[in-house]
């Protein structure tokens, strides 16, 4: 069994004491003492309020926190619910905290949670980010209900975001996932999500967890596996995604590795099905609510983004030459030479660049990690253009802009197929 090698004896003993459960909520942590208490309280309140008759367990998989995160989780698990004193448990709500081996790695935490879900035969599971400061007990209901009651296998979140937050998601991850897998999943790298027991069993048994793919990008891999494995996927609106949320890496290279690198690597085995011009399957939205966008003013240093794009194009010329087509690189160089106020990274050029990166990754033109890193300056250029074009726009106009980019990714999909097959 997969869990034999990763679950410690003490953790196994605690799991055996719990016995079989209906619901498992996983909480991967690493130095989250500041926010984790509120999250545990919200999860407990959500479980007691909305699933009082189900056997439930909260599993905290910690990466070796130095700030007493585990102690806080244990204390929060036995303390009274501060915000909901009228809630009473009909069954014992178990909470277990364990420290997985091998040091902090998001994938190792997810693997531990999946292995525990398999062992406890949980039919409904969820993973909650430890620094979601806006989490409410209702989030647990919204995440778990479609899996527990409506037989969904994977539920990903939709958040209310500021229009300039999550630019990598809106300008690359969402459009490319939608184009390649014909599923409009807004958050292909979710920090909160729920899944069925059968998906957990299938994922726990994979051999990716000892590889880089599993260690850094387990969440993206899980989403792609659910889509390609024919599992029923859906989305629910959760609420606002706070700007203080530190779960997402601020380092763009790290973020690219965890998301784009994993997405490119999943194409290796899935490209035959991706390359077909499939019909767009609408991901079910059990609550029927679309994404919401905040448009409050926000301070952004666009000048720095532009400078880093221009420097990147100039300094990385020998690397970009090996990845991009000559015409694409020439267009980028022309754009980089323009004054800042005239610079625009058009949708078509951006999509062509991304597809050429994906094909170069497939053909291993150079080290794959170097290919992913070389995308960072180009992303900064696209982010600059998005910020500039949408400085004064309304929420609807931003959505139209993202939709146009998605359509461009879908239109140019044959170009990727040609590049992939080495015809260009």
């Amino acid at each position, binding site marked *: 069994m997969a869990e034999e090698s990763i679950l410690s004896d003490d953790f196994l003993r605690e799991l055996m004491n719990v016995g079989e459960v209906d619901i498992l909520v996983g909480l991967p942590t690493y130095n989250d003492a500041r926010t984790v208490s509120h999250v545990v309280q919200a999860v407990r309140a959500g479980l007691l309020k909305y699933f009082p008759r189900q056997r439930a367990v909260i599993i905290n998989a910690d990466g070796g926190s130095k700030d007493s995160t585990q102690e806080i989780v244990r204390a929060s698990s036995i303390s009274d619910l501060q915000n909901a004193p009228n809630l009473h448990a009909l069954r014992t709500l178990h909470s277990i905290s364990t420290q997985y081996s091998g040091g902090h790695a998001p994938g190792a935490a997810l693997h531990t949670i999946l292995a525990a879900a398999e062992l406890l035969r949980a039919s409904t599971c969820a993973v909650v980010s430890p620094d979601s400061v806006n989490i409410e007990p209702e989030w647990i209901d919204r995440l778990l209900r479609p899996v527990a009651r409506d037989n969904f296998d994977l539920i990903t979140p939709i958040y209310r975001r500021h229009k300039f937050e999550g630019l990598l998601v809106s300008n690359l991850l969402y459009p490319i996932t939608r184009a390649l897998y014909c599923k409009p999943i807004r958050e292909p790298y979710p920090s909160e999500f729920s899944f069925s027991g059968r998906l957990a069993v299938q994922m726990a048994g994979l051999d990716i967890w000892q590889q880089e793919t599993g260690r850094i990008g387990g969440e993206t891999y899980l989403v792609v596996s659910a889509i390609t494995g024919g599992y029923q996927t859906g989305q629910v609106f959760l609420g606002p995604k706070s700007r203080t949320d530190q779960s*997402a890496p601020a380092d763009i290279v790290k*973020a690219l590795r965890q*998301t784009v690198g994993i997405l490119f690597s999943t194409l290796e085995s899935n490209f035959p099905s991706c390359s077909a011009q499939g019909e767009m399957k609408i991901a079910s939205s059990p609550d029927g609510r679309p994404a919401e966008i905040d448009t409050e003013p926000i301070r952004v240093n666009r000048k720095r983004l532009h400078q880093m794009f221009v420097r990147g194009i100039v300094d990385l010329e020998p*690397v970009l030459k090996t990845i991009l087509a000559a015409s694409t690189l020439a267009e980028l160089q022309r754009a980089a030479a323009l004054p800042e106020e005239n610079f625009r990274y058009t949708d078509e050029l951006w999509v062509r660049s991304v597809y050429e990166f994906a094909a170069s990754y497939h053909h291993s033109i150079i*080290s794959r990690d170097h290919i992913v890193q070389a995308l960072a300056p180009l992303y900064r250029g696209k982010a600059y253009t998005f910020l500039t074009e949408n400085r004064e726009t309304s929420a609807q106009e931003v959505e139209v802009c993202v939709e146009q980019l998605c359509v461009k990714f879908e239109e140019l999909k044959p170009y990727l197929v040609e590049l992939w097959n080495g015809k260009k």
Partner: protein
Amino acid sequence: MWDKFVLELTQASHGIVENIARFLPRLLVMIVIVIIGWFIAWIFKVVLRSILRLAKFDKLSQDAGAAQLLNRAALPSSSELLSRLVFWVAWIGFILIGVSVLGIVGIEEHVARFFGFLPQLFASLFILFFGLLAASFFSRAALLAAVNSDLPSPRLISWTIRTLIIVFTISMGLEELGLGEHTVVVAFGIVFGALMFGLALAFGLGGQDLARQFLQRRFGRHGKEEHEDELSPL
């Protein structure tokens, strides 16, 4: 007197005929060895070329930057060059074996030295190739890291790392060949020391402003502004 002269002449001509009679078969054997050797070396070349193409050796050498060097010198591709090298080394080996069959005094020693030198030659070529590969990989990694960290002069950083690794590799290769061992080690030490000293001076004298800016950004008032401008990409 005349009879003695005729006798000596006859004996000498007999000796020459006997020597030629002894030498001709050896010459023939040598020619056969050279011809068979050419054929075997040609087979080596064809087989090696196929293996290298299957293993995508040209792509590997392109990654290492060796292909660009060869292009500049108007030489064929790496796999072609290596297979030709193996052909010539193998054929020269057979020629030397053939020559040793002739029984010429002193040749055997040279043949033995040639075969003794071959492992060193291949070891140094191996070191050189993987050194170039490492130089290309690490210089590109440094370039990408420097660009993404917004460090000044990323290409200079990348070039410095590439040059250091290549110099180090060449010195190791030459040492393996046994060519001027001490000279190479001393020269490398001097170049490396001078480079480090130069960099330390350059950083100390020229990088004062840079260091001040870095410290101000990191710990000073501007740190907060920079942080506020950061947008979460995910």
